[in-house]
């Protein structure tokens, strides 16, 4: 059985992605940064899941670990990532290469630096297409133009011949998305896909992603620091802090009634326009290990229990998960 068959057991059905108890370290020894600490995320078939967190929350490292493209200093200590029936960590490098871009694609923040500067963008897209799906050069070229057009790029046939430096930031990001979607993957990982773009362009790019995912019921794991972006795109939300998932569940439930103090503070900092809201202190260094809750130092509700016992993710009545001893005091029942 080929990898492709294993990951999509039934033809035509996109498999779900499951991350279980993922631990990632960057560096070794005393200076090691424990960037991801036991993360669990499930992306069902066709689901759109948003991951929010600040810098250093471990969200990008999680995405890179899923694709097995972590920087050379980082390594997975523990955990499992499955796509359908396939355990991605047990695949050979060659098998994994056939998953990347075909089953799972990723879009990075800075498209211009992610694209190859010395090849025309159309050629880069058709190379990905032929690599996974074969076919003639001319068919691949036609497919590249077709998908550029679907991304709302004006004059797609002409744009295909341009080099990355000839494109604006918004156009380069559309090209990245086109490249990620050209093989119709089951899952798209988007890591801050619109950060650094102007707000009106950001809205356009998100629109393109939403439309093209809907057309093929592709699953989405959208990583962002911006609650506004995730809110417009996703139905499920995962909130990360200091390498851990602190709250996850249905997006509207969490936004309207957060049960983790960090989620509550983050939402307030984002939404409030009457006066500045913020969480005191700053994101802790991930070199340290936490005895109790990683948020306890900044939390208005923290007590002795919070400082001494690590809160595990537990399920509440509305099926959300939250890692807080005092969740009942934060949210409404």
């Amino acid at each position: 059985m080929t990898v492709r068959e294993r990951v999509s057991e039934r033809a035509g059905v996109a498999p779900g992605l499951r991350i279980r108890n993922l631990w990632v370290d960057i560096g070794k020894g005393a200076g090691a940064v424990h960037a991801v600490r036991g993360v669990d995320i499930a992306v069902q078939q066709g689901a759109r899941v948003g991951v929010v967190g600040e810098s250093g929350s471990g969200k990008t490292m999680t995405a890179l670990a899923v694709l097995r493209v972590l920087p050379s200093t980082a390594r997975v200590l523990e955990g499992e990532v499955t796509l359908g029936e396939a355990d991605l960590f047990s695949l050979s490098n060659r098998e994994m290469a056939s998953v990347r871009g075909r089953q799972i694609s990723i879009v990075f923040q800075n498209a211009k630096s992610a694209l190859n500067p010395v090849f025309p963008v159309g050629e880069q897209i058709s190379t990905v297409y032929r690599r996974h799906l074969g076919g003639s050069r001319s068919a691949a070229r036609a497919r590249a133009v077709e998908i550029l057009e679907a991304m709302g790029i004006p004059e797609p046939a002409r744009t295909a011949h341009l080099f990355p430096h000839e494109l604006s930031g918004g156009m380069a990001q559309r090209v990245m998305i086109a490249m990620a979607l050209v093989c119709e993957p089951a899952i798209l990982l988007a890591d801050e896909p619109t950060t650094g773009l102007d707000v009106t362009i950001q809205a356009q790019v998100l629109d393109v992603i939403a439309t093209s995912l809907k057309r093929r019921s592709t699953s989405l794991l959208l990583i962002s620091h911006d609650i506004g972006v995730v809110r417009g795109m996703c139905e499920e939300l995962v909130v990360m802090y200091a390498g851990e998932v602190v709250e996850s569940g249905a997006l509207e439930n969490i936004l309207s009634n957060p049960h983790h103090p960090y989620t509550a503070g983050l939402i307030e900092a984002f939404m409030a326009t009457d006066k500045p809201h913020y969480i005191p202190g700053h994101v802790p260094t991930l070199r340290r290990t936490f005895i109790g809750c990683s948020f306890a130092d900044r939390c208005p509700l923290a007590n002795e229990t919070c400082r001494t016992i690590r809160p595990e993710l537990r399920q509440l009545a509305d099926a959300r998960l939250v890692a807080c001893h005092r969740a009942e005091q934060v949210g409404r029942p």
Partner: protein
Amino acid sequence: MTAARGTPSPPDVATVSLDAREVVKRYGRHGFGNRRSIAAVDHVSVSLQPGKTIAIVGESGSGKSTLTRLLLNLEGVDAGEISFNGVSLQRMSSEQRRAYRQSVQLVFQHPQQSFNPMLTIGGSILDALRLRDDLSRREKQQVCGELFELVGLDPAMGERRRREVSGGELQRAALARALASQPKLIVLDEPTSALDASIRGQIVELLLQFQARSDLGYLVVTHDMRLVQLMAGHVMVMYLGQIVEEGPTEEILRRPRHPYTRSLIEAASLEGERVRAVVRGEVTTLAEDYQGCRFFDRCPFARKKCLQPQELAVTDDDRHVRCWRWRDVESVARETEVI
């Protein structure tokens, strides 16, 4: 009167003001034999005063950064005039120039890039204190400590270098450095956009505190509508070098009258079920001789008449807008409540 060391007497003038009148800055386009130029800032007027906050909003290419460079005299204007306390920046005496440098300060967007990597944070702030020649070296050390306290930093932080402190702490240090010369006006170039969401409010609160305490005037350059709402009483929206709308922040956010303002507000809106692409296209470069509305290509309200030059007109209630269809824009915007 002997002022306390930390608070020496401000410049001699009673009120400080920095005024730009109809300023123009043109940049040449590169290319052999190509003598064309585009106006990055096109007849913009703005007046900064102590105690007031003005926000300039616009996307990349709008000319907002160029305008700040002109106001800080990092570049000269091609037409129009910028004056400090009534004296043109071009014609200042060295003494006036010194007063200007002391009174007008800048905080950059990326604190990591605005500190000298070789100096300690404390060293950078001491360096900024060279404008205060009323202080001895020892007094400068003491003022430096007071500034750390003022922005809520541990004075021990002064011994560290920029890579050893977090972004939020470094931005506090950048504020301390800007405050070192006891300015009356501070230009804030995206002061929070490099910071994490949970701590942005800390910097905003600090800025508001300083303003209340020392009657500081701010010019906030940003694309973040929420920051505008939190800080500025008056907002100017720029598009391709021109002011397209200007007026009281609350009014403009509630009832935008220029299609571009409207699209900016809607794109930044947290409400709304779906992300909507409100305007099409991107910021383009225009032909040199093009006189019409610069937003024409992207505007859902565009008509033939928009190809004629558009004035920044005063509307009935003293707001300024550069769109002859502003009544239509406003009535549509009102139906969909934004922000």
